[in-house]
């Protein structure tokens, strides 16, 4: 365990949490979340609010637990073996870690976008309609949903004449926006993004970042990123994780310009990470 270097003027964790913009209601309230793979605890009691219609960035060096935290938010962590969890994650007021929670309904309401663009080997249309079909949307309503989702992902104009072409005819950046559209198609409330631009070139990265900033009008976004500049550019609040703890959480502009913890300062100024 690493002892956190605390600055005297900050007494409690609560003080930092509260420094996040308070005006918006919370979608997730995470309290004392502990996650372990076997005997190896990777999250040591995390508490964090995720606010509605905001982009919350999770930053920190590799292995700090940011991806694990993201995976617990839609319970994709259940796909891993030998998981132990404790604490609570209240999603819209309901603890999703309680037993017998059905992850299928949760995942419909919480979409996810992965590091590498992962379109299915299907047409553009079938990629986007995949989720709604599973959830029982009637065939005649599909094209409307596909169009709306592609528009929300700002991809529609680029692909509207070739919806039935293979998804692999798209460029890498377009594929990632297609995956975002696919996640939007189940009408989620939250979009989780796990380093969504790490496999993209700078131009495509810009397009996706642009999209993320627009998404928050309708959706809540949680963004894991290892690029601090990205967090600074697109997020409203930022949580800095280090070795399984939230070191600091606050409004992004404040956190980057005036970090309260020494470790945060060291990380964002590039002294480690």
């Amino acid at each position, binding site marked *: 365990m690493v002892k956190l270097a605390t600055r005297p003027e900050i007494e409690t964790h609560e003080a930092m949490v509260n420094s996040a913009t308070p005006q918006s209601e919370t979608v997730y309230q995470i309290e004392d979340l502990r996650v372990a793979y076997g005997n190896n605890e990777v999250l040591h009691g995390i508490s964090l609010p995720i606010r509605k219609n905001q982009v919350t960035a999770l930053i920190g060096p590799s292995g700090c637990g940011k991806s694990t935290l993201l995976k617990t938010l839609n319970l994709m962590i259940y796909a891993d073996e030998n998981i132990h969890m404790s604490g609570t994650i209240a999603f819209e007021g309901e603890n999703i870690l309680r037993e017998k929670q059905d992850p*299928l*309904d*949760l995942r419909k309401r919480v979409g996810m976008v992965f590091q590498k663009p992962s379109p299915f080997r299907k047409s553009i249309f079938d990629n986007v309609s995949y*989720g709604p079909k599973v959830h029982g949307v009637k065939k005649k309503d599909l094209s409307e949903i596909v169009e709306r989702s592609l528009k929300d992902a700002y991809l529609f104009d680029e692909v509207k004449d070739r919806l039935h072409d293979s998804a692999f005819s798209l460029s890498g950046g377009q594929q990632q926006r297609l*995956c975002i559209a696919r996640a939007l198609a189940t009408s989620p409330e939250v979009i989780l993004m796990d380093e969504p631009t790490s496999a993209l070139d700078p131009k495509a990265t810009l397009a996706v970042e642009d999209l993320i900033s627009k998404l928050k009008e309708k959706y809540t976004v949680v963004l894991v990123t290892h690029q601090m500049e990205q967090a600074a550019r697109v997020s409203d609040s930022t949580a800095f994780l280090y070795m399984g703890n939230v070191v600091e959480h606050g409004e992004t502009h404040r956190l980057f310009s005036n970090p309260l913890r020494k470790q945060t300062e060291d990380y964002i100024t590039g002294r480690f990470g």
Partner: protein
Amino acid sequence: MFNVKPNHMIKVKRSQRLAFTMLSLAALLTVIILFGILFYIMSQGFSVISMEFLFTEPRSMGTEGGVFSAILGTIYLVALVLLIATPVGVGTAVYLNEYMPAGRFKNIIRFSTELLAGIPSIVFGMFGFIFFVLMLGDYTGGFSILSGALTGVMMILPVIIRASEESLRSVPNTLKEASLALGTTRWYTIKKIVLPFALPGITTSIILSIGRVIGETAAFLLTLGGSLLVATSIFDGSRTLALHLYLVAMETGDLQMALGSGAVLIILIIIINFTAAGLFKLLVRRFST
């Protein structure tokens, strides 16, 4: 700098030429043997083949008449074996790969599969004879296409399971996760994403198994019964072309008729393989793009 003996490069080149000659001779030998056998059987057997040979039943233990019942027997058997072995084999592979957590029981199943693949076919035949023909005779019809098919299923299951597992493993995790993250069940993900992706590998394993069933004699000698009549149901005895060839050659000594069956067998293998490959190609195009 280092010194090179004046003749060194000549030696190196000579050894290269020698190696090239030997290797190409080895390759040539394989081709000569294959075409030698094919040519001999075809040239000898072709004289026997006629419409009558193809479409009448054998008489006098196969020394007269044709091979119609054996052709049908082969097709029935292959079809029934595939009908049973494909769902069981692919299902086992899916269960092992997608559902079963790593652990001892999984290792035991894998190990059993490998052992099953190493058992000689005559042992399968013996087991099939005792279990399906004698013990379950009331249900399988004794010596019958069903008894033979069930024995054949045991023989080719390991091939299908192992090859299917191999191609299921090649499905990228990112695709499965992307599907699960959309709120789908594991089974839906398997149906819509995993199986279509793995289909080419699975079909290859099935086509390989067809060859094994067509060529097998020992296991079917003990379970099909070798009836010369045209089978009217799966509870009737029958014989495959390979079995017919063996029985005619060994029991009547009529090598001319045996060679005729051999020629038909080779042609049938080519036809069935091409048909299966074509069908599966259609299937792949339909489901995995």
